[in-house]
């Protein structure tokens, strides 16, 4: 047949190659693999544009049902595959620069396996297969976050990430079972078409479980803390997994299963959770000083935008924003990473004091941070337009506020960390220069794609008074940041807001979770001791018998008269029993 799974195979082979080949070749294997995947995805995209088809292979048979590995090639899936392989290719190229001194084989093998899983995920047609890849990307994320496992922080961060996402994974698992039992099919299209026949309990249960899955994977409230800690991993990992692809999987699932959520009536809940998350993220980002963590908070916020867009029945807006976000977020991570290698720190205040000239990084940084804020004429402005297309008035008002705060914290980072001056120019290394430049270009000029995006997934955009107001709010935020952080005026007025942000982060959600964790472990200790007591109960029983035996030794005392007495005793007993039963 058409064999679209060929898109996946190169990355699997690359992973194997990375393990088996000598150290220096691992990089080449990975890059070649992702280039091939990209080529194939683009090929399929253009060749099969508007000609969707399915592809499946039997996996196992049980209980009268055949479980198969099935992929679907539609405009959306092929586009996503292309996007994933494109970003992966850039990230892998960047890794050559960033990870030069690190163990190569393990890194590239794990990255390749990740890309393999992510490609599989976006092209899956079977919900079970989707789950398989969903969990695999989680495991790869665990391994990659904890890449520098010798240090406590990454090890802990990886463990936390996997535990949090696993809660979602297992909810997903349960949802798959529920949906499969009701719909008798695993194909996503099949399940969606049978939503009407689901009984109410199953509908609500599966929707809730899927909701937990997506908010854990996409780091929404209340599961967001893992993503911030995940920044302990290498920066390319953050660029690929934790901005462009893995966390977006949650949004992708939301988009795919949107009819399910809507018919369960979850739309308003998703929107509420989304806005709450966005506010928390924005406020926390305002207080943060570590550049990557600021970016993490902005990712959380962007994901919530995707969620909100989808929940307002605007799948196109969500996907287009996903695309845009992938571009500018990875751009920003590249910049941050380059800054770390070149300048030695991620702390924005340290960067402020030690860096004289950000060099050629300055303009791309500006593009990136402006994209977070959604300023025109960058691509993300158009994305904002698209995603707010179906907003109600209330939504739009909230969104305006958000735009302000978003611009505020993103430009704070920019103005503090980056500066342009006449000091000596920065070295341009190709593996970093090319990806950054490429992404900046797309982020700058890509807005026009929005008008053509409907081909991939139905996209609308709506320019109204609220979009204008939010654009102004964004500019206002940028200006405020400029004043505050560059010109250092208006400090007193803002310190109140700043204190609020600090208080929020102190009573941080993270500590609640830690407390819960500790409580659980103590509970477990109690139960563990209970079990030990229970087990020793049996030893107690056998000791009891042993002591019974020792005590009874006295009966057999060697005295004949006792024995004879016993005989008579027995005689009496026998007679009694006889009389009782006759």
């Amino acid at each position, binding site marked *: 047949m058409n064999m679209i799974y060929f898109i996946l195979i190169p990355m699997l082979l690359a992973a194997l190659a990375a393990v088996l080949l000598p150290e220096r070749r691992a990089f080449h294997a990975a890059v070649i693999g992702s280039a091939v995947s990209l080529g194939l995805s683009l090929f399929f995209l253009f060749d099969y544009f508007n000609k969707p088809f399915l592809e499946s292979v*039997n*996996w*196992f*048979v*049980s*209980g*009268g*049902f055949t479980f198969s590995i099935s992929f679907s090639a539609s405009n959306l899936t092929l586009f996503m595959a292309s996007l994933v392989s494109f970003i992966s290719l850039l990230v892998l190229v960047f890794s050559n620069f960033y990870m030069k001194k690190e163990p190569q084989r393990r890194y590239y093998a794990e990255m390749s396996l990740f890309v393999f899983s992510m490609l599989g995920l976006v092209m899956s047609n079977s919900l*079970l297969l989707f*789950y*398989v*890849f969903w*969990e*695999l990307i989680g*495991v790869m994320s*665990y*391994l990659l976050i*904890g890449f520098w*496992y*010798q240090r*406590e922080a990454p*090890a*802990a961060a990886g*463990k936390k990430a*996997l*535990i949090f996402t*696993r*809660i979602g994974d*297992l*909810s997903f*698992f*349960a949802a798959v*079972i*529920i949906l*499969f*039992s009701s719909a008798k099919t695993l194909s996503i299209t099949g399940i969606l078409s049978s939503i009407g026949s689901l009984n109410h309990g199953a509908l609500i249960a599966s929707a809730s479980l899927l909701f937990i899955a997506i908010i854990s994977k996409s780091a929404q409230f209340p599961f967001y803390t893992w993503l911030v800690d995940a920044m302990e991993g290498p920066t390319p990992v953050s660029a690929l997994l934790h901005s462009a692809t893995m966390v977006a999987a949650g949004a992708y699932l939301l988009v795919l299963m949107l009819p399910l959520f809507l018919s369960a009536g979850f739309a308003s809940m998703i929107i509420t959770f989304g806005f709450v998350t966005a506010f928390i993220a924005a406020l926390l980002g305002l207080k943060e000083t570590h550049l990557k963590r600021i970016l993490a908070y902005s990712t959380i916020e962007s994901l919530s935008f995707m969620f909100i867009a989808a929940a307002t029945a605007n799948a196109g807006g969500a996907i287009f924003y996903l695309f845009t976000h992938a571009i500018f977020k990875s751009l920003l991570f590249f910049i941050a990473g380059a800054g770390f290698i070149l300048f030695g720190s991620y702390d924005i205040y340290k960067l402020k004091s030690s860096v004289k000239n950000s060099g050629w990084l300055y303009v791309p940084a500006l593009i990136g941070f402006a994209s977070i804020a959604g300023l025109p004429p960058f691509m993300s402005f158009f994305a904002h337009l698209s995603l707010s297309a179906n907003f109600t008035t209330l939504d739009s008002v909230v969104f305006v506020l958000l735009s302000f705060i978003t611009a505020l914290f993103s430009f704070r980072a920019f103005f503090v960390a980056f500066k342009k001056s006449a000091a000596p120019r920065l070295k341009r290394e190709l593996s970093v220069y090319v990806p950054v430049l490429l992404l900046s270009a797309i982020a700058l000029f890509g807005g026009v794609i929005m008008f053509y995006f409907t081909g991939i997934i139905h996209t609308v955009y709506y320019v109204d008074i609220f979009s204008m107001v939010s654009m102004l709010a964004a500019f206002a935020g940028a200006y405020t940041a400029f004043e505050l952080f560059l010109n250092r005026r208006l400090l007193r007025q803002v310190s109140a807001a700043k204190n609020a942000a600090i208080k929020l982060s102190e009573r941080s959600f993270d500590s609640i979770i830690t407390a819960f964790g500790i409580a*659980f*472990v103590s*509970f*477990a*200790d*109690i*139960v*563990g*001791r*209970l*079990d030990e007591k*229970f*087990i020793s*109960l*049996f*030893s107690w029983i*056998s000791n009891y018998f042993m002591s019974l035996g020792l005590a009874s030794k006295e009966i057999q005392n060697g005295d004949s008269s006792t024995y004879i007495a016993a005989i008579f005793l027995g005689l009496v007993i026998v007679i009694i029993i006889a009389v009782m039963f006759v």
Partner: protein
Amino acid sequence: MIYLLSFLLLPFIGIIALMVNTFLKCRMREEKIVGVVIAGTVAIFFGGLALGFKGISIDLVSKIGFSFSLGINSLSLPFMLIAVIIPGALLYTAYKEIKDNKAFFYILYLITYASLISVFISYNFILLFIFWEAAVLSLFFIISFWGDKDTGRASGMKFLVFTQLSSLALLAVILLLFSYTGSFSLYSILQLASSIPLLIQYVILFFLLVTVMIKMPLFPLHAWMPDSYLSAPTTGTVLLSSLLSKLGVYAFLLIGFEMIPAAILHARIILIGIGLLTVLYIAVVATSQRNLKKLFSYSSMIYMAMIFIGISSLTTAGADGAIVLTVSHSFIIAMLFILTGTLKSRSGSYEISSMGGYGAKMPALSVFFVFAVLAVMGVPGLSNFVGEFLVFFGAYSVLPIALIGLIGVIISTNYYLSAIKNVIFGRLSRAGLRDIGKLETLQMLLLSSFVVLVGVLPNLIISMSRGLI
């Protein structure tokens, strides 16, 4: 056509060879003899898979219906797979671990090997019981004499007492079946069992549950397990967890699923409930464990509980899942315990607090350790996943609330990842660590390849057990 009798003949020849070797002081390495026997058996097994097996049936004492019959039933093959291969991989661990009285140990090893395989191919219940008891007794000796110096004998006794209760209960089951069908032969009982009155089926189920809940083990009859697993030598623990517990699974499938499903049908909600209780309770208990071997012992119970749930649901999916999970769990837990044994020999104890940061100095071991833990957590692509999926799917179709068992899986994620973090990650806590050697790497590779194989192609195992209702 491969004769099933050869599964018994080869180990027997091995035992004779070992005895000759000792008495005549031939100075041949005992492990080599055992290795040859096992290799031969593996070859026979795969040959049989390809060419087909031929049974045998000789009447020994026809008056009581005791006949020496061997045959393959629909359940045999997956169980035989693990019984044939795992002791082979385990041999290297035994070689490193067992230093005194080797001849006697390896004789016991071969007896266990032959008995385990033969249980799965016995077509007469008395014969089955003979092999069952032989395996149990051999393990009693292994735990008592080669186990921990201080606690080995007491744990061995505890093991024996509990396991004897389960064997006696099995005997009661066999006798009840005999009383109502007039035969000990599996052929006849499989056909006639459905005509046993329901009340008697309940009684049989009761005794069967005693057997199974002790053997696998399940809460609340698991009291023997922590000490026995802990005190036994690594070889013994692997035999216990990978193979002996599966005897219980086999009995439950063979007798419960195939012979008295009517009784299980009425009781399945309760049975699934018992399984779920075990999963949740043990997940919490395991979280409190600071001893790595005990941690894995308790966590092993969770999978046995899942297998139990799968079979109790009386659905094809559940039973298939149980069988896949059985095979998968055997390989994975063997890996985990073998690695734990290696860790003990490096750090001197099983306490997690004495380990740490081993990833830096022992890369090969760490890779396998992380692999095995991920596998046991149910990562897709590795063997536990498909089994868990089918089990929960089967259970859900009978009792939707069964999905709360997944909470146990979530809880288990925590202690597994903590185990990895505290053992492999972090700063190196001691010096002078050697990584695992070539042979041990080979051993781990062998086991891992099965884990991956079953994970990617679970149909191999499922198709082995076709013929289930």
